[in-house]
């Protein structure tokens, strides 16, 4: 354990990076998921086809490939553009933080697309009809009936998506994001204690997963509070 | 008072049953003789199912004694096995094994429990399928049959074990009206042949024509037990009268 002396603050800042990536990627995931679901549910053929292509590709290929493609792809594109202005420039990349957040959000967003789509379709038509019959406008029905029913349905699978997101942040170390796995690699360089250093990373991620799981459980309890009396 | 008698097949004495703190069965006493047909009725939630499920130990009673054909039901697995071999049960929602064809549903228990050979089990199965008048459905899967046909298969499946007693738990409640008769016909035939039966049902016509005794349960108690004539024409208790007025006014 002495080996860890002097590394705790690095792990702490690495964890902060994990949390930051998570928050950014979570917002993007919800965005991609909602756009994807809207496209799939729309009557527009082209939108449907693009959304289907999106979910097929990003759910069917390794996460690491998507990450490498986005990071190195954006880097050569940016470098090419930069060289138009200044031929001296050798290399421009998107910071790993942004490339990585974007990549994992694209991946998890493809799963979220299906979740949101399913939740939208899962709302009992009778509820919507009842609201319309009571004289609520389309928008009122959407806000007061559809959305509350939807997020109740989407929450359990979306909780799993959040766990995927937090775990996928570890991949971003591969392109040089200075998160906990990266910290461990540095620490191993000087202490030569790989087991200790990586176990700490595992423990940190387990902590994050636990927090997310508990938060989702609390949210689910809140979302389903109307069912409690019936028990 | 000597309570057991050689012709008694089922004997319940001071049976109590709790679900947590909720007392489901309250001091139940019931005797069923060989060949006797008992119909149990009562409002929903009156613990009719719980009562008959205690008889083949799908539920455990907490106190009192339950004896089936001389075997007292305790934690002893041997006794439970012995009882279950002699008691057949038909459920409200059929509970046919969905992944097996009809004939496989019928052959499973004879092969595993009675150690019957494949051909014996098959012959028995086909014989009972004929008795419930659907031998032609033998190779179909349950989901391909109508509700009435499925329930007849379930009855045949129980009969394949050659039970001494049959328990029915609202066998027609999940059926569309036009299919109720075909199931009641099979049950009536069975009763005519002398099968000992305990049948939870709200089919009062069936009770009137088939039952030797009708039991009325309410809130976990046996309120009244009488032959059908007496039961229907001259109910003793106010609760029975109220229940009958509700059921018969349909």
């Amino acid at each position, binding site marked *: 354990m002495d080996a860890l002396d002097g590394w705790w603050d690095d792990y702490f800042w690495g964890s902060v990076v994990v949390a930051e990536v998570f928050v950014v990627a979570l917002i993007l995931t919800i965005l991609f998921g909602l756009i994807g679901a809207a496209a799939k549910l729309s009557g527009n053929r082209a939108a449907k086809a693009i959304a289907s292509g999106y979910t097929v590709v990003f759910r069917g290929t390794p996460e690491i490939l998507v990450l*490498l493609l986005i990071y*190195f792809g954006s880097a050569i594109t940016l470098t090419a553009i930069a060289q138009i202005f200044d031929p001296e420039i050798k290399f421009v990349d998107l910071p790993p933080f942004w490339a990585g957040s974007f990549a994992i959000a694209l991946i998890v967003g493809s799963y979220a697309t299906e979740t949101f789509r399913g939740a939208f379709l899962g709302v009992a038509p009778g509820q919507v009809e009842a609201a319309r019959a009571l004289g609520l406008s389309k928008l009122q029905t959407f806000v007061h009936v559809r959305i509350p029913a939807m997020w109740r349905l989407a929450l359990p699978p979306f909780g799993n998506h959040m766990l995927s997101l937090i775990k996928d942040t570890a991949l971003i170390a591969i392109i040089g994001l200075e998160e906990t796995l990266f910290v461990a690699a540095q620490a191993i360089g000087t202490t030569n204690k*790989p087991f*200790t250093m990586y176990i700490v990373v*595992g423990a940190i991620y*387990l902590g994050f997963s636990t927090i997310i799981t508990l938060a989702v459980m609390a949210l689910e309890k809140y979302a389903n509070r109307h069912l409690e009396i019936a028990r | 008072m000597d309570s057991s008698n050689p012709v008694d097949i089922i004997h319940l004495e001071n049976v109590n049953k709790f679900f947590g703190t909720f007392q489901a069965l309250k001091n139940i006493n019931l005797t069923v003789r060989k060949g006797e047909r008992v119909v149990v009725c009562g409002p929903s939630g009156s613990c009719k199912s719980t009562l008959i499920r205690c008889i083949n130990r799908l539920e455990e009673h907490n106190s009192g004694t339950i004896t089936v054909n001389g075997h007292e039901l305790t934690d002893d697995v041997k006794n439970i096995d012995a009882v279950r071999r002699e008691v057949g049960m038909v459920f409200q929602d059929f509970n046919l094994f969905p992944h097996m064809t009809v004939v496989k549903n019928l052959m499973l228990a004879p092969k595993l*429990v009675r150690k019957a050979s494949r051909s014996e089990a098959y012959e028995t199965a086909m014989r009972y399928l004929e008795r419930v008048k659907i031998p032609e459905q033998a190779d179909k899967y349950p989901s391909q049959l109508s509700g009435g046909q499925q329930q007849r298969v379930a009855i045949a499946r129980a009969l394949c074990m050659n039970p001494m007693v049959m328990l029915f738990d609202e066998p027609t409640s999940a059926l569309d009206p036009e299919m109720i008769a075909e199931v009641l016909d099979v049950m009536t035939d069975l009763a005519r042949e002398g099968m000992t039966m305990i049948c939870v049902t709200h089919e009062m016509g069936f009770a009137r024509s088939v039952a030797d005794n009708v039991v009325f349960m309410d809130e976990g108690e046996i309120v009244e037990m009488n032959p059908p004539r007496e039961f229907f024409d001259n109910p003793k208790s106010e609760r029975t009268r109220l229940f009958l007025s509700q059921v018969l006014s349909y």
Partner: protein
Amino acid sequence: MSFDMALILDSIPKMLMGIGLTLQLLFLSAALGLALAIILLLMRISGRWYLAAPTMAYIYIFRGTPILVQIFIIYYGLPQLEFVRDSIFWPILREPFGCAILALTLNTAAYVSEILRGGVLGVDRGLKEAGAALGLRAPHRFIYITTPIAIRLALPAYSNDVISLMKSTALASTITLLDMTGIARTIVAETYAPYEIFISLMAIYLILTWMIQRSFGWVEKRMSRHVREEV
């Protein structure tokens, strides 16, 4: 920016040289993982706390941490421990292939055992009672009623997990293995053509995903003859 077709045509055969390794990783860890998952499941539902509790801890840890971290702990971390170096497993654990198989197996087993448990819990209580009423003892009920129905219930989720596992095999490239992804990364390092290489490799993985889905679809169809309507 142009797509270098010649490079793609040149690289695909090279990457396909790694497909054998990718498939070995997939099939070996899928088979071992399934076996371990069944053991975990039986321990979990044994009703004995001293079997169930360690299983729950195992599942919690392996599902709560990134697979990449698990791979690093096993490949880089374990050699730090003397008893590992002295054990009879050392010949396996010193090789990246053995480490990759071990990590993938341990990881997938945690997920699969939960999937199987979902299947077992999904079996209608009434069916088990019907078995009991017919006089079948618990082991017979488990073998002839619970298991076949649970398998059918678990199959769709299981097929998704096999696809996840296939995607995770790409992480073997992070511990020096030259599976398809490993080869692709070396080609990109030489040619600096991430779009051409990574996109064509994604297409290859998509075909694998499609084949896995088709195979499971076929098995599911065969197994669900009983729910098909009148022929």
